[in-house]
């Protein structure tokens, strides 16, 4: 099962991953047109900053996800096979409980659509858009088991 990892020392904070994420989740899939769309696609990933380091943050798809427990609408389900928290936007009521309980502040409220935003690892694509977009290779997409520290 592949996971997203980060070499924070390599992150220069250009936020290209944010732009790529928003574009990947837009209707057009292309930068200039993304900005023209009626419902603006927003990034599910944010580069946060703490003590001289940049941290690209998005949903880590925890094995024991607090957000799933907290979801009163049962809009969130942990899919063991995919190793992902799935978000049923139809069921979601926008109560922001998942945003509140996430220990990584990785779930973002979209105040316009009243629905939280979360990383879906670009679903069926081979590589998530953020991985492709990172100019410095700070975002790594690899098997959990292959991880070397």
């Amino acid at each position, binding site marked *: 099962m592949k996971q997203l990892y980060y070499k924070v020392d390599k992150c220069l904070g*250009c936020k*290209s991953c944010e732009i*790529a994420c928003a574009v990947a989740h837009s209707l057009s899939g292309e*930068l*200039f047109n993304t*900005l023209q769309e009626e419902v*603006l696609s*927003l*990034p599910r990933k944010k580069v946060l900053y703490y003590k001289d380091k940049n941290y690209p943050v998005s949903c880590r798809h925890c094995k024991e996800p607090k957000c799933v427990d907290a979801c009163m609408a049962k809009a969130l389900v942990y899919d063991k096979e995919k190793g992902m928290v799935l978000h049923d936007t139809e069921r979601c009521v926008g109560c922001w409980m998942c945003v509140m309980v996430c220990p990584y502040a990785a779930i973002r409220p979209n105040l316009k659509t009243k629905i939280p935003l979360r990383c879906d690892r670009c679903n069926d694509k081979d590589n998530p858009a953020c991985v492709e977009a990172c*100019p410095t290779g700070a975002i790594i997409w690899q098997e959990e088991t292959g991880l070397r520290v």
Partner: protein
Amino acid sequence: MEEIKAKSIDQATQEILRKAKEENIKTAWERLEAQQPQCGFGQLGLCCTICNMGPCRIDPFGEGAQMGVCGANQDTIAARNLARKIAAGAAAHSDHGRDVAETLSLMAKGQAHDYAILDIEKLKALAEEFDIDTHRNEKEIVQELARKLLAEFGRQEAELVFLTRAPKKRQAIWKKLGILPRGIDREIVELLHTTNMGVDNDYRNLITTSLCCALSDGWGGSMVATELQDIILGSPQPVRGKVNLGVLKKDYVNVVVHGHEPILSEMAVKASQDAELIKLAKSKGAQGINLAGICCTANEVLMRHGIPVAGNFLQQELAIITGAVEVMMVDAQCIMPALKEVASCFHTKLITTNPKARFPGVIHIEFHPEKAYEVAKEIIKLAIENFSNRDKDRVDIPKQEVDLVSGFTKEIIFQILGGRYRASYKPLNEAIISGRLRGVAGVVGCNNPKQTHDYFHTTLVKELIKNDVLVLQTGCSAIASAKQGLLIPEAAEAYAGKGLKEICEAVGIPPVLHLGSCVDNSRILTAASQIIAEGGLGEDLSDLPAAGCAPEWMSEKALAIGFYFVASGIYTIFGASPFPILGSKNLTDYLTSGLEQLIGGRFEFCADPLKMARLMLEHIDKKRQALNLRPVMYA
């Protein structure tokens, strides 16, 4: 295979790209790939690096910072970034013009013996424009003209002399907007000043200043370059030539001139024909010396001497990869830093000649007009000596070598249409008025690996001439069309609409006219002004059934050109990717629509050559209608 076809429609280019791949030599296309993804903030114009409180970025999604540290918003940031590019583009053209004017000045002082006044008629005409008594002796005229032209650069008030070439109505618009350039250098300096931290924060005002700066290029620096090059190097006449990498010759010492400033390459032409040097080349086993060009230096020596063109901007590395180039001598502008690496894969010697454009670790033989021929001979000699170092097994010269006719100027179009003794634009005006010709289009500009090389230029040009639009070209765009066989009179038969074909057959011209290098876009401005002066097509340049396009642009110089075309009232389309301003909706809307009310011209961004053609035709038809012209004859 398919991948290479997506890179270029030109077969010679495809062939050398295959060779490059086999030999693992990287070119602009691979470097573009390695740059992916290119920064979205930069593409949108939302990154500001002007002061050291930054770099600042505006979040285009509206969530994060909407102001830089200083408080500049997306409109100010995008407009300032664009303005700086226009200033740099205008500076490049104008500094080129200054160098030519300085050469003229040295000639007047008797210090540039290798040059002579080759177009005395034009010298006198220009002297008259500058209020110089033409009855004086030639040396005095030259002296006075050089002084007055150099003064145009440092002029502080009133306006540039060449601006009076524009129709009266256009001059009045410039005056009303306060954008009559005072001095060539002054407008560049002022524009740079206004983009400094904490000066001009109004994107509309920044654009007004940019328009003024661009005018000081088109009707100033570039025009000085064109006019003086004609006087010193000779005015072009229609001339046959050949184009594409096939012009490099297997058994000859191949010297490629590349860049923009023809003052030295003119001497290289002479040196390549020097009997002694040819003898030396033969003694080294070569059959002779073959000079060829890349980019605008190529256009200059093609226009005046029929020297073959090896290719346009994206072919500069490829010429070296043929393995057959002994020396590539470069002057300034559009010279890829990558040439050094590519040349190091072969025996090719890269030689820089301009003190402003140097590469670390590359042979530098500095050009001075005072010893021009000497320098040119030294370089050609180096090439001859390098011939024996050529690895014959690594030579692959594509066979593509296409005929073309070049050498059209505003004076020549005048003569061809009306005849030498009754030179006139009247037949051209009448052709447009009667509807035999729909209108005129300028298709100019660079190459950009973001688009299939040459595809946009040639697809657009073919579609325009098919619809009876006479196409005027310069720069790398002209070279693109030449490679596809559009610059020969026979192209009218194959590609032009019925009306344009009739005209081409009657006067024996190609449907696409090559007007020269990118500073020669100034020829288009003066030609258009003379069309207005001829009468029947309105009173201002913005009345003309005409449009402009830079389909594959990449250089800041293209932005300066685009701005002086729009400032002159011409509808102008930019292809490749749009200006890096789309992060500012206000600025984008202003340039693509609001500007038209102000100045009569506007920009359009379009990434499909057939759509570009459609937009240009629609615009031309709109202008025809406004002039109450008859419908197009063969629609």
